[in-house]
């Protein structure tokens, strides 16, 4: 059976928000997880100012749910503090995008990317 995609997934897949990445530089952090070989990979990059995330970009390799999740996430993370970012949980994406059960593992890769992002931020702060 063809997997079924919710309207939100279709919308983000068709019109991804904030695709791409920021040039490395002042206030730019990056979080990567997964790999092409694995079939799912996320690259998140964010520009932070003071203690909040200002904007986020994503790259993704994966199924439409993954592409949509990357896109969706870039909007969700804006304004978060570092502790808020660290607390981010995959369930938020699942609720919004209704991942099919057998694809949930891919959300954990997304969570890993967010965690990597928050760690990069942590490294930035001191």
């Amino acid at each position, binding site marked *: 059976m063809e997997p079924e995609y919710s309207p939100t997934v279709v919308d983000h897949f068709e019109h991804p928000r904030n695709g791409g990445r920021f040039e490395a530089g002042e206030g730019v952090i990056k979080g990567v997880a997964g790999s092409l070989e694995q079939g799912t990979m*996320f690259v998140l990059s964010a520009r932070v100012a003071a203690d909040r995330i200002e904007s986020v970009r994503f790259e993704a390799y994966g199924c439409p749910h993954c592409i949509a999740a990357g896109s969706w996430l870039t909007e969700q993370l804006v304004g978060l503090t570092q502790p808020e970012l660290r607390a981010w949980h995959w369930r938020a994406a699942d609720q919004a995008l209704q991942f099919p059960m057998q694809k949930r593992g891919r959300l954990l890769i997304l969570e890993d990317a967010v965690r990597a992002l928050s760690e990069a931020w942590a490294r930035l702060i001191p």
Partner: protein
Amino acid sequence: MNSMSSPAKSAPVIYLDYAATTPVDPRVAEVMIECLRPEGPHGNPSSMGHEPGRRARALVEKARQQVAASIGARPECIVWTSGATESDNLAILGVARFHADRGRHVITARTEHKAVLDAFKQLEKEGFEVTWLKPGVDGIVRPEQVRDALRSDTQLVSLMHVNNETGVIQDVAGVGAICRERGVAFHVDAAQSAGKLPLNVEAMNVDLLSLTAHKSYGPKGVGALYVRRRPPLGLKPLFHGGGQELGLRSGTLPTHQIVGMGEAFEIGERDRESDVARIAVLRERLWQGLTAIGGVELNGHPSERVAGVLNVCFHDVEGESLRFALRELAVSSGSACSSGSDEASYVLRALGRSDQLAQSSIRFSLGRFTTADDVDRAIAIVSREVARLRALTPTADSNGT
């Protein structure tokens, strides 16, 4: 669960999935429709005792001649079935079971259609030993591989003529000569070759040949098995009953279906060269358009292939997203015949493709009603969507955390 899978886009899809099934040619539909009318030949072709039965029978026999002529066979060698799946099973299980006491070794290739693979797997369960030949990366099984695999107890060799996923053509005549020389029965699944390549069971030394109507502009649900009659080839039927088709295939003969297959095969053979020439041009046009995108590779042999099929893998695009992005195109990935599983194509895997590349492969298959405009629109869509998805693909330098 929200269900929301139908394409929201507006344009009608471009049908490039002729290898999965073709539309019925209007000329074929016409003769079938005649059969379905109240004044049509509605009798049971087995009811030879009355005129409506004999009228239906005459049409069935005319179609038998049409199909036989298209493969260089005598009409009495044609057994009507419900399609190539049944034909494949009847041939493979039929011969192996009939001659089981003479030997229990059989040979086929890993890239066969499921109908052949699964029939051989059934034989394994029944105590047969199967040699699974591995084709080269071009998808071709060399006749010498068959020669090397033959044993004194080999009963049957089965090799498809044209692969349904890649369009690659096997040297069945070469294999046929070897089998004939060694007195081993040779079955060919020709579901994908009728109307695309010349077929001659005598010249190719084929003992059993599977055909289906719906890949050649005939109706779904009817097929045929060619069975050599001289010398006769023992065959156990798959099922039993009224004794139609010389006892090899019982069940009321579906006149309209058979008439449709006969007409489709006659047209297919008559128009073959012009059809193929036209389709080859379109296929080349498509291939040029796709290579221009970059990062695409052809699956299977570059020239030993039928005109209509182009199986292409796209680097740096994930398969499921690619397919969803291309949903304005009716194309296929993996075999359309195995009901929508998400696994990587076992055919492409056998050709040495990685899971990932196999999954990012698309089969474009063109046919009689494909237009240059279809091809140009398809190229535009694929170019746009592949570029769009690749723009999101992380570049190599992003690896690692």
